């Protein structure tokens, strides 16, 4: 995929939707676009993290290691992003991400993300929206677990 096609693709990702095309081109040019085969791990729980991933195609499982064994807690689809916690909070990866189908992801290094947020606050708002959804989702699950 050439860089021009990639820019077109990135425009459709919600968190990048408000970024001007020239910046998006720089993002596409400087970020690695990685392909993961089904079953391959994007990263592993406990690893040190220095990048966030935006899913451009395919799907991935979010798996948390627990004393009872690995538990799949969520599934990521196109336009989803993952790995932000490790770089925002400077902590090891809190889950393992494994490709479910053939997965294409844009790897955004830590500095690039901070720079984007700095220049385009819209990116932060989109990310906050998504994170809020996740918290809400978690709360629902917690209520269900308590009730059961």
């Amino acid at each position: 995929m050439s860089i021009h096609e990639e820019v077109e693709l990135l425009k459709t990702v919600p968190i990048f939707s408000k970024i001007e095309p020239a910046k998006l081109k720089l993002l596409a040019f400087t970020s690695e676009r990685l392909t993961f085969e089904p079953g391959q791990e994007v990263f592993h729980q406990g690893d040190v993290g220095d990048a966030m991933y935006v899913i451009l195609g395919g799907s991935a499982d979010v798996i948390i290691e627990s004393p009872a064994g690995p538990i799949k807690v969520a599934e990521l689809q196109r336009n989803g992003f993952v790995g932000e916690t490790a770089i925002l909070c400077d902590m090891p990866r809190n889950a393992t991400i494994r490709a479910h189908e053939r997965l294409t992801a844009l790897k955004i290094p830590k500095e690039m993300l901070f720079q984007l947020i700095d220049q385009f606050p819209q990116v932060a708002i989109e990310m906050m929206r998504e994170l809020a959804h996740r918290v809400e989702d978690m709360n629902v699950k917690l209520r269900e677990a308590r009730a059961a």
Partner: protein
Amino acid sequence: MVRCLRVIWRRMEKNLFKYIWRHSRHEQLIILLLVVVAQVFYFASLNLPKAIVNDGIEGKAFQNQAEVPFLRLSVPVPAFVSESGSVTLFEGIPLTQWPYLVGMSCLFLVMVTVNGLFKKTINTQKGRMGERMLRRLRYELYDRILLFPSAHFRKVKAAELSGMIKDEVEPLGGFIGDAYVQPAFLGGQALTALLFIMLQSVWLGMVVIAVLAVQAFIIPRLRRRILVLSRQRQITARQLAGRIAESVDGIHELHTNATTNYERADIVQRLGTIFKIRFELFQRKFTAKFLNNLLAQTTPFMIYLIGGYLVLFGDMQIGSVVGVLLAYKDLPGPVKELIDWDQQRQDVQQKYEQVAEQFEPDGMLARELQVVPDGPLAPLSGEVVLSNVTVAEDGGAKPIDGVSLAAPLGRRVALVGPPGGGKEVVTQVIARLVRPSGGTVRIGDADLANLPEAVSGARISYVGQDVYLFPVSVRDNILYGLKRRPLKPAVYEGAAQREWGRFFAEARRAGNPELDAGADWIDYEAAGASGAEDIDQRIIEVLRVVEIDEDIYQFGLRGTIDAKARPAVARSILLARDELHARLADPALSALVEPFDRARYNRNMSVAENLLFGVPIDKTFDPDNIAANPHIRAALERVGLTDDLLQMGASIAETMVELFADLPAGHPFFEQFSFIAAEDLPDFRTILTRLAGRSLADLDAAARARLAALPFRYIEARHRLGLIDTAMEERLLAARRAFAENLPAEDADAIEFYDRHSYNSAATLQDNILFGRIVYGQAQGPQRISALIAEVLEGLGLRTAVIEVGLDYNVGVAGKRLSAAQRQKVGLARALVKRPDLLVLNEATALFDNAAQQRLLDTILEACKGRGVIWALSRANLADRFDQVIVLQGGRVAARGAPEELSADKTFADLLAAG
């Protein structure tokens, strides 16, 4: 084979002249003799031109006779031998004028040649003698460094020592040739002239002597200060060298502390001092010269005055005065040169003294300790016993004080205690790095103080907290501990043997020992190997023990080999290539690598790499300057690509200017992603502005060259600008063929092309196995490929071969191309490979993390089973693996016993609690 080093005097000879005389008197006498003989010919030839003009041309000798004897040889003798006053040795050949002239002219030519030859021979002899002495002196000084007590190395700077041996003794070589000959010769000339004057007139003789005496009295006094100054000059210059070396060694401190200007100030200060000294030196030297000349001119003044007086009022003949004046003409020359010689003498003498005293520290080791051993050495046995050992430092501190302990060889002894409690120094004492100021150390029956270094070097290994590595390969660093004597002499044949004979004859003349660096010094047997063939096997075993085999394997993969020199390895690697490519046929893996294929464009290689399709061997096809290479340009021109690449360069420039325009100059993206450096971006912007709406052909040549250089670094799969479509790929492939087919003969050795079926000596092992590029954008591509390569190599049993290539890796100056942990591990490997009877470790693994430390402790103790280990541990909780534990605190033994017995001891418990 017994080779004893010649014992040289314990103290350096203080007097340079005695030193020279002791080592070169035969040569000095031969040269002196040559000089005297040369004088005879010289004086004989002086008379020739006169004879040629007077007799040969003007024919004065032929006025009374038709024939004159040619080559008539007679010597003057006293009257009582012969009445005529001379004895004729050869009557000569009677010749008429023309043949006489021819004969005399030829004789003149012969004499000129003979004189020239004498001069050449004397100078060569002098030079050779000087060089021999210099070689002797340099060797002797180096030899003394090896005998310095280790404590002395805390006080001396390496740069100063090497500077002294390299530079400061250099002028001595030039002087040594003249040391005796010059004064003898000049003194002889001067005395002859003086004698003649005395014969003419005792009075005038006295006057001349008086003036000379004044000269001899005053000039040395003037020189006293000069000598002091030149001593200072030498010391300040040496210190300057030392300071420069310090700046280099501590360069990181200079930068991190921003003290470069402080250092500049220091150097400015020193250069100022040196200038002052040197300038004063010049002033005084020329003043001395002026006075000297003045005094020399006083003599004719005195001769005129006193001689004139004696003629007027005394009984002196005017002819005598003229005679004296003529004789005096010959005097100032030699006297002046003698004075110059004397100045030089004082200069080198003080240089020599200066150097010599630096090489005489107190407590030099006895030479007998470093004698080359006669043969294999018996193993050590018994116990290591320290009796009341005390080490006192200069300041009076005692790092260990009255330590007594016994450690049987064959047992594992742990030394624990707080840092500085004495455990470190105990290991250094046993390793003989620190000499005890009191008490004794014995191993079995031997007193460590008198044990030859060859024995302790072979039988005891020591590794401290930081290991020094030599700038050679990993292998040579590990084998370094096995080179104690030449075991297998190098075989020389024919011309090489004669050369070798001459080499050692000359070495003997300069007092250098006959130790051949070309011999095989490696004691394979000590390492448990039988020779050069299986030593690598032993090294690899040791590498596994210290857990550095993986690192060395990686070095091997990144290393190169010459396929001609090591065909077996090259063949194996080709097998690995076949195997890897067979596995890459698997669809799950095939996406990871794009193989090299002469007939296909590789989208994961840059344009330059695609055009070359090979590995540059020298700078000719250096990818960074490839755009300017005439042959590449010709190839591109031939397939009509020049303009297209220029167009491609323009679009790259456009994209880069667009993308990076807003980034600050220092942004890391420039280095990581841009084709254009931040500082060049405005230039390209200007070029693009000029280009707007016009054709590329309108640009000037310089701008075109800059644009044309850009596409060569472009990698389609990585940069994804969509510049290379299928059609362009085909045309670049045509250029690749044009390049290879028209490669000029002189550049044939500058590149090695990729070939699926042959080993590429210019590429790394890994590239040879992979024979392709890892595809961009495949998650964990490089990791998965390197795992695959490891699997393939393991399967073919080639891991060892790769490690062997890795052993060739050069560790760099002081091992700086290795990490600190790797250096330490190589040091441990060096200690283990010689299978010592006693392994002494001084916190040698403290650098590693806890888990690694425990693993290493176990594997090393296992590898040394049945041999003695004395290990100063940084962590007391590792001591449970040992047979005996000794706790050292405050320089004394605080507790000792088996680990389980000690658990009740409070000191040990505290140490355990502290971790």
